[in-house]
């Protein structure tokens, strides 16, 4: 039943914590080159879905396929290496490493210098280190001058909130992913920054050729970027389709606003 055309495919995925069903029977897919938004009220299971896909949690049931291969049971670092990169709902940088180093960590899984190469600085290792640096600068450069120049050598903790979010995305881009998963990228940003970020998400697909799966609360962003929208509530998919279809779905409206009082 798995379709190799899909980049990411979840089938009947379930995850519960004790008696709480964070996800149950969740099935949806993401195709290459798509921007898919995941919406839903707080506690709907959106972040749990992210954590299950990226290996931080193991699902209790179901099947998760990336490029047709089952990724259930793999460690997070192995899944990242397969080509899924993510950001976190609350910013998680390496606060005391410099901005450049943060991005360079992203390249870790694409490189392989070992102890001997590092100790003797063999030519291969030096070339690789140069490549890591270049690639890290490229991903920082995706956000214009905000993370470039003198800022490269500053600790990540010195950045403003919005720039921390951007650096987290740059670090994800530096892992050379095929699929980027952004967990509420505009949370806490002001309207101008939010607009800018909307463009960045579109550019990730158009310029970098990436597929994007994004959890987002800001409906202007969801409307602006999504090819498709998946709505979750109580760990289940309640609607899927274009923005307009989902936005007018009675179940979605109910999930967000509640039902009309009867009588």
């Amino acid at each position, binding site marked *: 039943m798995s379709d190799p055309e899909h980049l990411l495919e979840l089938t009947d995925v379930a995850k519960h914590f004790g008696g709480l069903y964070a996800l149950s029977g969740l099935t949806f897919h993401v195709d290459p080159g798509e921007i898919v938004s995941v919406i839903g009220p707080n506690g709907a299971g959106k972040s749990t879905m992210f954590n299950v896909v990226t290996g931080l949690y193991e699902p209790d049931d179901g099947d998760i396929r990336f490029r047709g291969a089952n990724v259930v049971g793999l460690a997070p670092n192995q899944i990242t290496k397969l080509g899924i990169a993510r950001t976190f709902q609350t910013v998680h940088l*390496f606060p*005391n490493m410099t901005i450049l180093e943060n991005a360079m960590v992203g390249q870790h899984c694409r490189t392989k210098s070992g102890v001997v190469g590092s100790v003797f600085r063999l030519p291969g*290792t030096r070339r690789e280190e140069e490549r890591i640096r270049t690639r890290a600068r490229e991903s920082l450069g995706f956000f214009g001058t905000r993370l470039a120049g003198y800022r490269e050598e500053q600790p990540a903790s010195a950045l403003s909130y919005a720039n921390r979010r951007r650096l987290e995305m740059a670090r994800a881009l530096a892992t050379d992913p095929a699929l980027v998963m952004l967990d509420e990228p505009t949370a806490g940003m002001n309207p101008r920054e939010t607009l800018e970020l909307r463009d960045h998400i579109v550019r990730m697909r158009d310029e970098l050729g990436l597929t994007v799966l994004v959890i987002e609360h800001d409906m202007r962003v969801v409307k602006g970027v999504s090819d498709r929208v998946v709505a979750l509530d109580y760990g289940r998919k309640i609607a899927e389709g274009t923005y307009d279809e989902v936005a007018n779905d009675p179940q979605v409206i109910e999930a967000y606003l509640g039902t009309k009082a009867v009588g």
Partner: protein
Amino acid sequence: MGEVPTRSIVRAGLLGGAGAIYVALVGLYTKFADLELVGEQITLGRVLIVAPAFVAAFAVTRPRVVAGVRRSVELRSGLAVGAVSALVGGAFFSVAIWFADWFGVDRIREVFVAVTEPLIDFLTFDKGVPAGLPILIGLCVVGGVVGGFARTAPVAIRRPATAGLLAVILFGLLQRIVPIVFVELGFEADWLYARGSGLTFLGGLVVFVIAAGANAAWNRDEGRSRERVRKSMQQAPAARLGLLVAILAILAILPLLLGTVISEVLGQVMIYVLLGLGLNIVVGYAGLLDLGYVAFFAFGAYTTGVLTGAFLNTTTGAATPALSADLNFFVAVWIVALLAAGVGLLIGAPVLRLRGDYLAIVTLGLGEIVSVITASKWAQPLIGGPQGMRGVTKAEVFGLNFQDNPQHFYYLALAFVLLAAFVSWRLSRSRIGRAWNAMREDEQVADAMGISTTKFKLLAFALGGAIGSLGGALFAVSIGSLTPASFEITVSITALAVVIIGGLGSIPGVVVGALVLLGLPGLLREFEEYRALIYGGALVAIMILRPQGLIPNVRRSRELAEEEVTQDAWATKAGAESEAVAAVLPGGSLGVEKEDLE
């Protein structure tokens, strides 16, 4: 004096007095009454009388935050506050002495063995109670005034003055080492040091002036010229290379200048530098708190013994171990390191899932297991059990004898230390070092960014273990015989203290930490019995005053400062918000948005 609350002054004075009483009770005064530092009058014992008052005055005249503004104490009131607090402390101390004298020294000595007639005589300057007590109080007041001065005088004066004072005390303490170096270098030392005792007055003055001058030059223009030197060093590889060569040259001729006794101390220091460098990889780089590091030290030492044909001690004489080889040390040591890396993997594997406190406890247990095994009957056929081994190789090569000649051993140890430092340095600035760093900062995120935490934890344990085992191998060669008493938990603790005092993640820090914790007590044999006191005191002081260590790693200090940054950010944000509100109110428009700070 209005700037400092009276309560604080009195409290500081009493604490200083209590400190002096403590020093008296543990016997430091009687021990060092006759250790002359400068001339005949300034003895270490008398410095210790002044020291508590100095520290108390220094502490109580610190800048205070009053109504949100940080205020330094002015010089005049600083001196007065220091004097008053010292007066209180000296009075408190005097009362205690007077009480001891009245109550009867012999009756107190049943509990505090250090309280003797000579102690009372020393503290009253042989004038008896109460005639000598005013002198004592006067001396304390001098200490208090100097302490207040050291905090409140203009920076340009107080820094060099304090540096000079400390240098004089240090050189006075090194009275059995510095003259030897002078003589070895072909200089006359009589003008500097009185024969068989401390500095002469001229010598003290010279040391003071040189140290103060050096400090003043170093901090000239508020440290701007220092920064210039540092920058030009960073930008000119030739200068850096030159500095490196100079340091190596000094290290190479050091044992020739210092003679056998000090070389022996340096050899022991370097064994702990090796342990520190190894542990630094595990704790400093990878952030895995290992309290059982003695395991690698023991493994390295015993394996070296077994592989180089040492004997087991038995009641009837000697026996060959159950497993034995007779390899050359320089072949065996690489096998030892390799095997130790394997032991690192064995120890690392079961603790991979543990973090923080749990990891510390489990490694503590694993270290104890190794200690117990070395002393067990079970291990007797292999490594001698309680009786141990002897006849570890002297590792002779090119006519150098590394066991009986400390100067030769110094070179062997130096070679290993340089190797380990080089490896650590290169690793810390590589993809591997970056991975360790990321893992230490946030393990889960590092994993999610594609770093195999399993692999890099094991790598840290293996490399740390290999370097630590080299320390054990050197130790075995240097003393030739091994008994379980050398492989107890104190080794783990000392190695950890070396790393922490020096500064986690800092290679020069490890060297300095080992010099402070093992070099100073080794050089100043008088302090041998107070070693535990010094360790404890140094650890507490460092953790309070300089938690990032003596020579901190840049990143580590950031981690410790993080909390403040967060606070600042919060404060700024709160301030900006109130401004935004203020901007909204007059115009009455709610559409005003806080401008993007960029």
